[in-house]
């Protein structure tokens, strides 16, 4: 029994940060119809910014809890600014063009941000481990877990619920959904679509950066961080269905659990397992588990 509880817990910890990254990716796709390759770079950017904030706070002798708050605040401020700047300054020039053009533009942004992070933070690994000890250790299923890892699970659940609630139960959310379903009609009803695009993209960047920041205290930040994440998060949103919040959640949990089960039961198949799930889902539901309903235009 303990063995299965361990797999579930390991899977949920893995799923928690993956979900936040994938949520941002799926939000941007849902609203702007952009397959955003640069999403992984925003994750890396968040991790680096968080590490800097934690290091600055630690250097002043302040406690790790202050570092934790500082890293979340700094990520929110900078990531939103970068998101708005990129959307207003670059992406809007390509709206209405072929989807491939936008894909290439975001790939260019990915390459530029890779170099920007190297330019600012260098090529050597950076650590900011102080907040990792913030929540102590807890015993579960006969194993010790780091409290920080466990806290990520409710954080991701809250973030996911907030986005779902915002989209489905608030006026702003309804406006966003209206834009998703029919942009022309929304414009004719007086919706400022450009503003919706900018806010949605900024939120996408924020979510990627938040996931990076939350992961930062337990990893080493180094070049290459962004490419691994983008592959995983694409797999998740493809499994869940592009543009679906529920799909991102289920996709992340499936990938997290599959990976955990594989490491415990069949380590050699770990890398293959994610793609096996993706292939299995796409075989039966080519548009993912949660296909978004689209209104038929007359």
């Amino acid at each position, binding site marked *: 029994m303990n063995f299965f509880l361990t797999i579930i817990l*390991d899977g949920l*910890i893995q799923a928690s940060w993956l979900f936040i990254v994938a949520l941002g990716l799926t939000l941007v796709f849902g609203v702007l119809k952009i397959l955003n390759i640069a999403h992984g770079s925003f994750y890396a950017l968040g991790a680096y910014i968080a590490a800097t904030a934690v290091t600055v706070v630690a250097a002043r002798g302040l406690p790790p809890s202050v570092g934790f708050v500082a890293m979340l605040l700094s990520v929110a401020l900078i990531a939103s600014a970068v998101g708005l700047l990129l959307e207003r300054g670059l992406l809007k020039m390509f709206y209405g063009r072929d989807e491939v053009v936008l894909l290439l533009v975001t790939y260019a942004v990915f390459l530029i941000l890779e170099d920007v992070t190297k330019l600012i933070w260098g*090529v050597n690994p950076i650590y900011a481990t102080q907040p990792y000890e913030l929540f102590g250790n807890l015993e579960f299923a006969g194993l*010790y877990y*780091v409290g920080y890892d466990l806290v990520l699970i409710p954080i991701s659940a809250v973030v996911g619920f907030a986005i779902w609630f915002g989209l489905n139960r608030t006026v702003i959310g309804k406006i966003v959904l209206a834009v998703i379903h029919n942009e022309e009609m929304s414009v004719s009803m007086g919706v400022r679509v450009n503003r919706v695009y900018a806010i949605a993209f900024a939120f996408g960047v924020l979510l990627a950066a938040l996931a990076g920041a939350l992961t930062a205290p337990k990893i080493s930040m180094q070049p290459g961080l962004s490419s691994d994440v983008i592959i995983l998060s694409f797999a998740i949103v493809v499994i869940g269905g592009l543009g679906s919040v529920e799909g991102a959640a289920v996709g992340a949990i499936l990938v997290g659990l599959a*990976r955990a089960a594989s490491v*415990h039961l069949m380590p*050699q198949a770990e890398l293959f397992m994610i793609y096996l799930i993706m292939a299995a889902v796409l075989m039966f539901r080519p548009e993912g588990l949660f296909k978004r309903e689209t209104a038929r235009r007359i």
Partner: protein
Amino acid sequence: MLAAPASAQETFKLGIVTFLSGPAADSFGVPARNGAQFVIDQLNKGSVPSPYEKVGFGGMKIEPVIIDENGGATKQVQELRNLYQRDNVDVVLGYISSGDCLAVAPIAEELKKMLVLMDCGTPRIFEEAKYNYVFRTAAHATMDNVGLVRYMKAKNVKMDTLSAINQDYAWGQDSRADFVAAAQQLYPNVKVQTDLLPKFGAGQYGTEISALVGAGSDVVYSSLWGGDLQAFILQSAPRGLPKRSQLVFSAADHVLPPLGDKMPDGTILGARGAYGLMSQKSPLNDWLFKGYEAVNGVYPVQAAYRITQSILGLKAAVEKAMIKNGGKKPSTDELVAAMTGLEWPSPGGLIQMKLADGHQAIQPIAISRTKYNPDLKRVDLVDIQYFAAECVNPPPGVKSIDWIKGGMQGAKCN
């Protein structure tokens, strides 16, 4: 290429390839670059202790051309051609990645240019091919793993059960195979439990740590390095893995300075040689250790030692060839002949080109345990044991894994 008379103005152009960016830069590439710059500077000033007092290489000043190893094997093949054909370097020396070594060795051979590999772990370079123009001046990964198991046996470390975590590429797979095979020789009843091969650069090991802690093996072995090793230690220590299992790392000295008190006490580790805090006192070692520390503000770890022994070996070969050819700058073929089967002293001990018809080095190794020193605020290495080169390296003509599985016949350990 014809041998020309060497003059005081003549230089020896040396291509140096090491990671200046990417995941291996901080742990290996930059310390290697710093080591190369220190040694070349000292050689050009004639400030290196005996037997390397002569300026540069046989009086010729060394002119380095340093290239980044990052970017993959295809890029390195092109860069190697550029070094020989565009930059006209006399010799290329370097390479840390096993994948890069395997890719560039055939190119140097095809161009009939001398290539000195200073690191790379995989035994496959000379065990699966034969080269005339390629040399490796450091022992391969077999030494690290045989040394670790011999150390554990000598120190009565219990190993009825074993778990392993290694990166899923040439270095991780070869290291794992050698360690498990050596363990099965010296601990015939050992049972391998969890055997994990996460991808290179995985960064997060939460699930792997659960599996390792859950297995509760006597020993957890790993050849992880750099940022991956640091992340693994940072994540596994609070989860009690070092308390439940004896941690054994094959190449971990380079993470001691950045980890500090986060490194668990009592961890058994190797440094791929008798290097750094495990090096033995000698005028040559004092020169490197103190000189490097003074210039770089941190003591030298394995990569700095490995490039130093490589450059000193090349110097010994150049000067040996010059004695033979009447003091002229040696041709590539003269240099190759001088390097084949050469022996030379280095800060990490005597280097002997004994394997692969004189093209592959063997060397002594040291293994030790970690102990944090709060006064110096650094991890010290204690309970050090040294193993002779012929105790931990295979004899000529035998493949490493066959030698281990055959009971390590012919090993000279006293």
